C-alpha cells in the first residue's frame, strides 16, 4: 500500500499538527498573561524622568535585581584593589581601597538598563563620582573621552561629558551590601544612562583620552555610544 494513502499515518499527522497548534496557542496565552501581569514594567512605562524622557527606555522590562551577566572575573579582594586614574590628567593617581574611602563617598539612586532587555530601577550605589576623581587628578582640557578599564583587558568607552554626570561613579556598595563578586567586586563603574556594558565590572583603571577608543563590546558589534532611549544596541 502506498504510504500516502495510509489512513493511520494521515490521522497521526493530523493529531500531531493539532497538538502542535494547541501548544503554540497555550504558550502564546501564557506569554500574554505574563506580559499583562508584569506590573513593574507597566508602572515604569507610565513614569517620566526629570529630563522629560520616559523612565523606561523602549524594549526594556523591569526586574527586581541585577542579573549576573558573566565576564572574566577579576580579583574580588578589597585588600589587593588598586585603581589607576591616568591619561589626560595633570597628576595620575593610584588609589587603594582605603584611598577611595578617604575621598568622601556619596550615595546615588539610579536605574540601570542592560542591552539584553532588563532594567533595574532605583538601585542604590555607594562610591565616588568620576567627576570627583577627575578633579583630584586634574583633568586636562584635551580630555574628551573616558575609558573604563576592567579585569582581563576589558574596556568600555564613554564620552567625557556623560562620564562627568552626577550619577556616574565607581561603586563598591549596592543596596547597602558590599558589591558581590558576580557584579564586579570590589569596585565597578556605574554609568546609569548608557547600556550597562559601559559600566565596567572589576574596575582597575579610569583613563582619560583625547580620542575615542571603542572598547571590548564596541569592537564586537555593539553600539559605540549605547543610549538606551535611542535603542543604540548594535553598531
Amino acid at each position, binding site marked *: 500500500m502506498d504510504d500516502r494513502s495510509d489512513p493511520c499515518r494521515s490521522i497521526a499527522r493530523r493529531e500531531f499538527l493539532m497538538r502542535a497548534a494547541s501548544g503554540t496557542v497555550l504558550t502564546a496565552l501564557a506569554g500574554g498573561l505574563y506580559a499583562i501581569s508584569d506590573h513593574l514594567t507597566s508602572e515604569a512605562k507610565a513614569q517620566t524622568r526629570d529630563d522629560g524622557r520616559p523612565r523606561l527606555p523602549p524594549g526594556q522590562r523591569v526586574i527586581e535585581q541585577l542579573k549576573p*551577566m*558573566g565576564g572574566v572575573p577579576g580579583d*574580588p*579582594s*578589597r585588600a589587593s584593589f588598586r585603581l589607576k586614574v591616568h591619561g589626560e590628567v595633570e597628576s595620575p593617581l593610584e588609589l587603594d581601597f582605603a584611598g577611595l*574611602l578617604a575621598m568622601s563617598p556619596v550615595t546615588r539612586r539610579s536605574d540601570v538598563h542592560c542591552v*539584553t532587555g532588563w532594567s533595574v530601577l532605583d538601585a542604590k550605589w555607594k562610591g565616588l563620582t568620576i567627576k570627583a576623581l577627575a578633579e583630584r587628578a586634574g583633568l586636562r582640557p584635551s580630555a574628551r573621552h573616558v575609558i573604563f578599564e576592567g579585569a582581563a583587558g576589558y574596556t568600555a568607552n564613554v564620552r567625557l561629558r556623560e562620564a562627568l554626570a552626577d550619577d556616574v561613579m565607581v561603586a563598591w556598595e549596592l543596596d547597602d551590601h558590599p558589591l*558581590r563578586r558576580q557584579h564586579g567586586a570590589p569596585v565597578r563603574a556605574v554609568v546609569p544612562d548608557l547600556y550597562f556594558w559601559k559600566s565596567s565590572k572589576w574596575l582597575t583603571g579610569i583613563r582619560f583620552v583625547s580620542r575615542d577608543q571603542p572598547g571590548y563590546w564596541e569592537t564586537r558589534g555593539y553600539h559605540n555610544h549605547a543610549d538606551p532611549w535611542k535603542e543604540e544596541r548594535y553598531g
Partner: protein
Amino acid sequence: MADGGIPEPPRPPRRPKLKLRKWLRALHRDFGYVAVGLTFIYALSGLAVNHIADWDPNFESFEREYTVSTPLPTDDDAAAAAIVQQHAGIEGEPVDVYRVTDDLLEVTFEHRTLHITLGEGKVFEEGQEPRLFIRAANWLHLNRGKKAWTWFADGYAVVLLLLATSGIFMLPGRKGLAGRGAILIGLGIAVPLVYLSTVGSP
C-alpha cells in the same frame, strides 16, 4: 553465439560508475566522527551563552547572612576571621584578611568573601562556585585562552564547511539536490535572509 536462436542485441557500453559519492560519504562520515566532541562543546556553550540574561553560564552564585554569637576581637583580624570561618564551617585558608574600616573586616577565600561587622558579629557571605563543564566549554567557545586553541577552532570551522559541502552532494535523486535536498537547503538559507530583511540587520 548465433546458433540455436536470435542473437541478443548489442548492449550499450556501460558508463564508468561515479565514485565521487562514495568518497563524499566516507569523508562525511569520518569528519562527522571527528566533529562530535567539539560540536557538543560549541553547541552546549552556545545555548548557555545565548541565554546569559536568564542564568549565569559560568558560575553558580550564593549568599547568606548570619550572626556569630561569640564576641569577635577588634584588635586581631586573623583571630576574628578564624572564629567566623569556624562558625561558618568554611575549609581552606583565606586569601586575604582586610580591615576595611574600624568595624568592618573582609575575609576573602577563593570562591567566597565574608564581610564581617565586628561589633555586631554580623556576617554577609557571598561567592560563586564555577560550573565545571559548561565554564570550560564557554572558555573554549569564546577562545579566552587564545594561543593554540585558535588553530583548533579554525580547524573545526573548516571541518563544518566540509561536512556541509559534502552533505549537499551525498545523496542522488529526489532526496538529494534534485528534490528534498534543494528545498531544505533553500529553507536553511532563507531563514537568516528573512530575519535580516524583516526583523533587523546591521
